[in-house]
């Protein structure tokens, strides 16, 4: 159990700045996910928390203990990697027992702890095997076992599920979630997979180019993205972005791009007439109805089993919207779009920051 604080942490690699003035407060027992594209600094941040990378500026705190210069083996952390990183020359048992033996625990206690961890992860029958005799999923379970058996104060995970196939990923995801609930330990989890982030996290830190873009709950990040980058990074299919202007009309503020016009939330857009903005529209927030209103033609239908993604051309604007699997759709069909103004996202065209309600 530990609260982790990063205080103005900066990391340079030669002339490249990987992290810039990072301030972060991870609560005790929280499941924190770092989300972002490759090279955004999320793994560097994890390594810094682990003590595997030295920082150029700033401080790191575990509770009230400053660990900025504390080597990894004195930080009481455990780590799980994308590559599993099992010791190839050791058996599964020895892999899991390694950390305990380093701490000098007696063999009876090591034996008991390893067996209990193995049982929890359903790998008891694999204890005598070597890592190369295991499947990917089994290896990742061993890696989890190696981490949890040490009962660390912080659990660090670096894209642990990225090498697994889709079905296994889902089951391992719930396993990790259950472990977090059962262990009551702080988890810090790095991923580029939005589904993992949204399902696992108590809070998500979205990162880009070494800077935090948004730190909030999954719900807030999905429904109130702080900027265009965050909005584009979460959601499948990706949010539609349409560049245009805000126009004040007698019926209230509207988003205008040629003939493509939509009423927007007056709380956000009031008094913003003439401002260049980017409109964000999630595929699931648009309702498709019969012809009339803001209408356009279907250009592509992608059935996904549980739903359909429909590409449309409305007044020269390309959009992707979601339709139910039962809706019968064909290329060339004319449909109209209905959207609740409160569901629309508006970003400033230049700064790309979200326009928030003025209240």
């Amino acid at each position: 159990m530990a609260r982790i604080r990063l205080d103005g942490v900066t990391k340079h690699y030669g002339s490249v700045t990987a992290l810039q003035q990072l301030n972060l407060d991870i609560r005790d027992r929280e499941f924190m996910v770092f989300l972002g594209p490759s090279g955004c600094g999320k793994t560097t941040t994890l390594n810094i928390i682990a003590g595997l990378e030295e920082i150029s500026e700033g401080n790191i705190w575990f509770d009230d203990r400053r660990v900025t210069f504390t080597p990894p083996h004195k930080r009481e952390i455990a780590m799980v990697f994308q590559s599993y990183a099992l010791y190839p020359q050791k058996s599964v048992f020895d892999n899991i027992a390694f950390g305990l033996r380093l701490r000098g625990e007696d063999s009876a206690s090591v034996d008991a702890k390893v067996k209990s961890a193995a049982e929890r992860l359903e790998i008891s029958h694999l204890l005598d095997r070597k890592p190369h005799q295991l499947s990917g999923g089994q290896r990742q379970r061993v890696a989890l076992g190696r981490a949890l058996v040490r009962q660390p104060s912080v659990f660090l995970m670096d894209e642990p599920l990225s090498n697994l196939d889709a079905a296994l990923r889902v089951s391992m995801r719930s396993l990790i979630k259950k472990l977090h609930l059962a262990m009551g330990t702080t988890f810090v989890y790095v991923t580029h997979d939005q589904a993992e982030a949204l399902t696992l996290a108590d809070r998500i830190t979205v990162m880009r180019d070494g800077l935090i873009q948004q730190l909030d709950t999954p719900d807030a990040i999905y429904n109130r993205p702080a900027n265009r980058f965050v909005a584009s990074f979460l959601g499948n299919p990706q949010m539609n972005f349409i560049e245009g202007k805000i126009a004040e009309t007698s019926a209230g503020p509207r988003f205008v791009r040629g003939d493509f016009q939509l009423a927007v939330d007056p709380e956000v857009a009031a008094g913003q007439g003439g401002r260049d903005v980017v409109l964000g529209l999630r595929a699931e927030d648009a309702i498709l109805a019969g012809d009339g209103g803001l209408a356009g033609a279907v250009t592509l239908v992608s059935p996904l089993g549980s739903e359909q993604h429909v590409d449309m051309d409305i007044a020269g604007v390309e959009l992707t919207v979601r339709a139910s699997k039962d809706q019968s759709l064909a290329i060339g069909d004319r449909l109209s779009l209905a959207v609740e103004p409160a569901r629309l996202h508006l970003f400033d065209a230049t700064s790309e920051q979200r326009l928030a309600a003025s209240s």
Partner: protein
Amino acid sequence: MRAATDDGRRAMIAKRWGRGLLISAFSALLVIYVAGPVAWLVSSSLQSEADITAVPPNWLPPKVTFGNFEAIFSNTTREVTYETRRQGDPATGRFLPSGAENLLPALWNSFTVGLWVAILNVVVSITAAYAIAVIHFKGRQAALYTILATRVIPDIALIVPLFLVMRNLDLVNTRFALVVTYLAVTVPFTIFILISYFEQIPRDLYRAARADGCSHVQALRHVYLPLSLPALVASVMFAFLTSWNEFIFALILTQNIASQTLPIVISGFVMDFTTSFSFVNAAGVIAIVPPVVLAMMFERYIVSGLTAGAVKG
């Protein structure tokens, strides 16, 4: 149609045979080139002086004799007198060159020097290579280049300064001087080999070990060393053989029986007036036995050890 297929098949078989023959021929040539001198050394060590110097030469001993080896192992310091004058004549096959009694002490010297070099070389190189390959400290590249730069200077240019240094330290005529000198030769190369091997070990294993609670020394011991066994064995062999075969430094730095190594003593058997080829060859056979035994013991590691660093895993 069938004829054409048959012709094609025949041509293919002929091509395959031709290629096989060519490979065999070149392999045979290579074996003769590499093993020929060794075979001649062994063969002539089992012949009497008269048989060795016969024209045409005897490729195989007409009469196998162990007299040369007997002479090496049973010799004692002795003066050639009228009664033992025949020992001064190489043609008798019982000829003992002066200094023959130094052979076994020299064998021991070579062995101890080689052993120390092999051990210290690995101990020093492992820690240096780990530091350079794994710990990303400032000046890491500079350290590596400095170490390698020491090997750019040819050995011959170092001999006189080295001799002066050793003399001032009062280390001339000691095996310690040889060990230190050979380490200066082997350590840079070994560090280089081990760095490339360590760098092939996935970085995540290092991160895992550190997260599991390993200090640097423990990560080296529990993760890097077990996974680098082939490279370590290759390094031990390399250091031992370098030390075992070295001539020029030993010639300059050691001048007495207590410190001279095998190459120096054996070369001393080739004298101005009389040379017993049979004796020199027998000594040569004894000189190649320890490295061969060592190589056979570690053969399976050496092969994978030598290809180490070639492929980025």
